[in-house]
């Protein structure tokens, strides 16, 4: 299929957004390895097509809930590098003034209701956001991102039941990266994951999570239908995380092989796949894609330098924001 001219900008933006996520994660990992970042973080590298394919189908007014592996969702929903790196480093200019860190970045100006450090913890929040949309007659859609590991949480089944009963505009996006922390998905998930949604009468799809065009095409359709009140929907996105469960999970041989990791990085990489397609369709040459990538990596480096130099919050902020003020 020859791409339409009007879509060219969309394709290039999807490519850029995926490179942005990779650039963010490469830098975050380096900050960890150089002992410049407090705590740990969970890398999204390898899963970029999932967040970008879905978020490119959303409007700023649409909502998402994210996970402990949430940098990708945050970037894909429009967040800014500087505020994100500042948050990772616990700086005042971070999205959460340094109070949330990697696992709690929230960017409500772009509809990101926050990453969540409880596996499956945001399923209620996403479904509640969709309930609010229905009650207040707003046409926004909420996407709930979660991993295959989170399908073992009971909350999912409680809220899918209510979402289906009340036809809520929510899309459950299960990022199946093959591992629930340090355990293969086959060991923790009985039966088909999509069958669980189907049990509630929810239309469920499985899609190649490394193919941003396939993800986006499906997401566009489902988001539009959800907006019209035909939701909820469920998508299982087959993907892979390049790093361990978190940046400190270095020795992984006991649960997965180096050969498997190599195979995904070499032949299933979402950025490579999209780059090759853009080149083969004559939308962008390899050298043009390299310029895109170099520009983004430069921006990321600058944002890291900015964040390293940025101020920590004043100690008086420790008791700020425990309670919201009266409106």
């Amino acid at each position, binding site marked *: 299929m020859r791409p339409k001219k009007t879509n060219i900008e969309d394709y290039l933006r999807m490519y850029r957004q995926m490179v942005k996520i990779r650039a963010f994660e490469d830098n975050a990992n380096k900050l960890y390895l150089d002992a410049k970042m407090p705590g740990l973080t969970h890398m999204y590298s390898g899963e970029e097509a999932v967040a970008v394919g879905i978020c490119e189908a959303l409007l700023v007014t649409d909502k998402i809930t994210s996970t402990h592996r949430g940098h990708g969702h945050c970037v894909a929903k429009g967040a800014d590098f500087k505020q994100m790196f500042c948050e990772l480093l616990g700086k005042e200019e971070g999205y959460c003034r340094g109070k949330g860190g990697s696992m709690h970045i929230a960017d409500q100006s772009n509809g990101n209701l926050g990453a969540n450090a409880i596996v499956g913890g945001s399923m209620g929040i996403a*479904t509640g956001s969709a309930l609010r949309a229905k009650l207040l007659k707003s046409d926004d859609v909420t996407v709930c991102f979660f991993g295959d590991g989170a399908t073992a949480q009971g909350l999912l089944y409680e809220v899918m039941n209510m979402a289906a009963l009340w036809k809520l505009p929510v899309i459950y996006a299960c990022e199946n990266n093959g591992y629930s922390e340090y355990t293969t998905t086959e060991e923790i998930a009985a039966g088909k994951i999509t069958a669980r949604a189907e049990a509630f009468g929810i239309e469920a799809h499985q899609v190649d999570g490394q193919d941003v065009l396939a993800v986006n095409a499906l997401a566009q359709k489902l988001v539009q239908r959800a907006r019209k009140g035909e939701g909820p929907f469920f998508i299982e996105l087959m993907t892979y995380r390049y790093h361990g469960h978190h940046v400190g999970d270095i020795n992984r041989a006991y649960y997965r092989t180096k050969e498997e990791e190599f195979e995904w990085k070499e032949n299933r990489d979402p950025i490579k796949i999209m780059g090759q397609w853009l080149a083969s369709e004559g939308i962008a040459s390899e050298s043009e894609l390299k310029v895109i990538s170099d520009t983004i990596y430069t921006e990321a480096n600058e944002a890291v330098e900015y964040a390293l130099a940025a101020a920590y919050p004043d100690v008086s902020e420790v008791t700020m924001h425990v309670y919201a003020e*009266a409106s």
Partner: protein
Amino acid sequence: MRQITLSQAVNEAIAEEMRRDPTIFLIGEDVAEAGTPFKVTAGLVEEFGTERVIDTPISEPGFMGMAVGAAMTGSRPIVDLMFGDFLFLIMDQLCNQAAKAHYMSGGKLNVPLVLRTNLGATRRSAAQHSQSLHALVAHVPGLKVALPSSAYEAKGLLKTAIRDNNPVVFIEDKLMYQDKASVPEEEYLIPFGQANIVREGRDVTLVATSSMRQVCEKAADLLSEDGISAEIIDPRTIVPLDETTILSSVKKTSRAIVVDEGHQSYGVAAEIASIISEKAFYHLDAPVIRMGAMDVPVPFSPVLEDLTVPTPELVAQNARKIVFGEMIHGL
């Protein structure tokens, strides 16, 4: 002034607020046509419809979590949790999500919701429908906790809770639903963090939460027969807590008993007693006494269950001991 029950007071507060603000909705198990097992929300569905009075499946973590998401994005949910004992079921959504969202987001996300539930033993409901678990939620920063002690208090405090921009846990004593009190027709709100001096006295301060207020009022009557004048303070909200009123009272009377229906160990009574000991120590003439529920699961058999909660007689007995100086010999 007209007399209405605590149940009616709660119902009126919800109805008035729902009329005022279309973003408020009520959600929980059997809140619509059934009006809850205690009939507290009866009639609301007729006025506001099933869109705003929402019956859920028996999925407490599910609807609690949904209330959090709805609150974050522009609604103001009132969640009905049928029994306070079910707090254990929703702890993640309440304490990890609702309580922390504002802080973790650096003030960007608000979670304006009210979780209504209940406490109270002696209803012959055994260990899983009789607990008073407010200490659990009071322990978690980010939650406010209100404990109405009468119909009047319930209406004024609930209206304040609904207008608050934070998650508020509002816990009614289920044995008080039919208790009547004078409640004005005209609108009033009771601010959080302002204790009520229920009765003024000279010799001993009785700090009493929720229905322990009635227990302490009866105790005070018994004590007056012995010439002991008891002052009763109802904190109204334990988060925020009005320390000033409690400490002023203790500084006047020099003695204090804190009575709360939660388990006595590691509880609300212990916290308030500790504050008194730390901040009014040199004004005290006797040790501060905690009185809570016995540290046992609530038993079913009436002869056993009645032993587990503070009674007017026990409060009066303790008050006599500290007023007459028997404490030096130990209780």
